[in-house]
């Protein structure tokens, strides 16, 4: 789950700069004239100096590749015509601008739509199961009982193990001929399940592994949310004769809303782009049945020869566009429900 943590750090950093800029920058000052701006700069130069490195670093590591990716998606760049250095020999770039041809090609290919349907199913499946399991576990852990700390540790463990290690462990468990899961089933008299050899089972398997990896994060976040709900509310509800389900529905769920909306958005974006689980567990297989958009983009760029950089950039830009549309719609629907977010 290295991806999770690093992304959240980047995001936190991004938000941090935004807030600093908004709160202390000149945008809050009403002065519109040149003089006012200068004055504002003079007053807040320190704030600007502080955020400059962050802006610069973000620009270099995110902004530039992004701009370059968008540009490449409008060209016919591939391995044969990009600039490269071979020892002392320099080969100049010869690719050309082709406009929206790549987009037309990708969107006109049924492969894109097949991948999109499965990617959406995969995302919705993973996020909803992860959320329900995370919420259940968090609710269970949110009470006093013996050995609570030990349970928490055990449940957070999957998060501590590097993602690729867990995925390989699962791959060994899932192995049809020699895997432990099938050995166990065999012991129970059940025929072996072709976990990664059958398209449907492979889909179930990748979702199961991703849920296993994602539950700890969900649980910890929701546990934090649960603990911020005042106990008095539950006491009062109990006095009024509300049953456990009523308390859960009318106190816990609304109380968790802010936290759960955020974690659902985050985990949707992560799951949508969850490259390692699919790539390492099934390589998109059997056949191409578990291929999601990002693994397909990787295939376009790194498996075909010559490597098609333009095509892959096109897939990347489309994925980004889809996620941005999703985030916008999500935010709007939250705002309609009265959440300030």
């Amino acid at each position: 789950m290295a991806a999770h943590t690093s992304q959240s750090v980047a995001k936190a950093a991004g938000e941090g700069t935004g807030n600093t800029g908004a709160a202390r920058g000149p945008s809050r000052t009403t002065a519109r004239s040149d003089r006012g701006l200068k004055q504002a700069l003079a007053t807040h130069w320190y704030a600007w100096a502080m955020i400059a490195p962050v802006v610069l670093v973000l620009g270099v590591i995110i902004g530039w590749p992004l701009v370059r990716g968008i540009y490449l998606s409008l060209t016919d760049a591939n391995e044969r015509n990009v600039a490269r250095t071979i020892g002392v020999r320099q080969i100049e770039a010869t690719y050309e601008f082709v406009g929206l041809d790549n987009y037309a090609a990708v969107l006109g290919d049924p492969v894109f739509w097949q991948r999109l349907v499965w990617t959406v199913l995969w995302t919705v499946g993973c996020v909803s199961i992860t959320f329900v399991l995370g919420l259940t576990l968090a609710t269970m852990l949110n009470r006093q009982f013996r050995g609570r700390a030990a349970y928490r540790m055990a449940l957070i463990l999957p998060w501590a193990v590097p993602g690729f290690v867990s995925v390989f462990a699962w791959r060994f468990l899932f192995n049809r001929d020699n895997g432990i899961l099938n050995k166990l089933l065999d012991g129970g008299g059940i025929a072996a399940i072709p976990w990664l050899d059958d398209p449907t089972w492979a889909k179930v398997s990748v979702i199961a592994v991703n849920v296993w990896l994602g539950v700890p994060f969900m649980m910890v976040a929701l546990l934090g949310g649960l603990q911020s709900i005042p106990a008095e509310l539950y006491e009062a509800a109990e006095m009024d004769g509300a049953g456990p389900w009523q308390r859960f529905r009318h106190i816990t769920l609304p109380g968790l809303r802010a936290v759960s909306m955020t974690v659902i958005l985050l985990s949707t974006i992560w799951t949508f782009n969850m490259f390692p689980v699919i790539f390492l567990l099934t390589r998109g297989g059997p056949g191409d049945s578990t291929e999601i958009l990002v693994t397909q983009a990787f295939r376009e760029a790194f498996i075909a020869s010559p490597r098609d950089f333009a095509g892959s950039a096109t897939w990347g830009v489309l994925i980004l566009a889809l996620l941005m549309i999703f985030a916008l719609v999500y935010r709007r629907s939250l705002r309609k429900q009265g959440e300030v977010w």
Partner: protein
Amino acid sequence: MRRGIAATALVATLALAATACGGDTKDDGQETKAGGELSGTVTWWDTSNDAEKASFQKIAEAFTAKHPKVTVKYVNVPYGDAQNKVKNAFSSGSEAPDVIRADVGWVADFASLGYLDEVPAETAKKIDAEFLPQAAASGKFEGKTYAVPQVIDTLGLFYNKKMLADAGVQPPKTLEELKTAAAAIKAKSGKTGLYLRGDDSYWFLPFIYGEGGDLVDAKTKTVTVDNAAGVKAFKAARDLITSGAATTNATDGWTNMQTAFKSGEAAMMINGPWAVADSYAGDQFKDKSNLGVAAVPAGSAKAGAPQGGHDLAVYAGSKNTAAAHAFVEYMTSQEIQVQSAKDLSLLPTRTAAYEQPDVKSSEMVQFFKPAVDKAVERAWIPENGSLFEPLKVEYTKAVTGTATPEDAAKAAGVEFRKILKGWK
């Protein structure tokens, strides 16, 4: 594509880290011929499998005995990800190896991208005179020689002599005989007749050649995988599974196939000489004579297996080309080839090596040499390697029954034409 060599763990870790870790560094700026003596470091990326690598490392490092000032840096790169890893290293220029062991299908690709240094004229002449002609052909691109063949191979039918004898059957010569033999084996021991690797399209080639077809026809620039013979080939592969003669898989094919064959769970498999050393390590083959090899079963047209093998090539950007070429020459010398034949049952590429007693006495070489002579030479085009990826998707779908043979053949044709722009 051809063999998912190593433990899956390593394979995909490297894939994931491919861009991040170059793997090794090279001493910069050491010029090579100081007074005619070679010096510097030669980094070699070897793709041989777990059973072979120790032997190759020893051979490579022994180069120092001949050229004391040259240091050989041996790096084993799992075959499955080597093509990608090599490309990453070659195109970025830094941390690239000096010498690579390239599958015969990759040479034209790398050469067409300008990554390979031409073989010195003198060596090129020797290759034409002293090497098997079909092996020599694999190192050439547009009339120039870019790689020296190290080993040559093809696929054959590996069988467990005892299991076949117990069931009272002969090694099958055709797919029909294979089905009968498998039924007898299952009746006798309850085990599977054939373990067919389902996650690698190289294993599909005997089927398409067996029906008289081919993936492409490079002369007329035509994609042929989806013609009638191609469809029949997908059908033949699928039929082995539905008839119960064979079992297959869609993941971890190499490991599962070797495990099943070595432990006697499957009586037969289709594999190449590179699997011999590993097979001998299994319980069933403690007595080496229990391992038999026959030609791949014939389809309706003939018995055909692909010509494969590995070539050694020097990176065009190497700072140490003189030492690198000398290293390649050493690694492909007769002496070394004979040693690999003896230790690992790998087939030499030099014609004269087959006269050596050690090679002559090897049972595997005795079988595989005539097979290699008859093996189907592939089209040595740059796209050769990349055709296997879409083919793998369709082959897996066909053998596991998620697509009909007709659909699989058709889809493979569509993908091939995307890669081979302008082909019929």
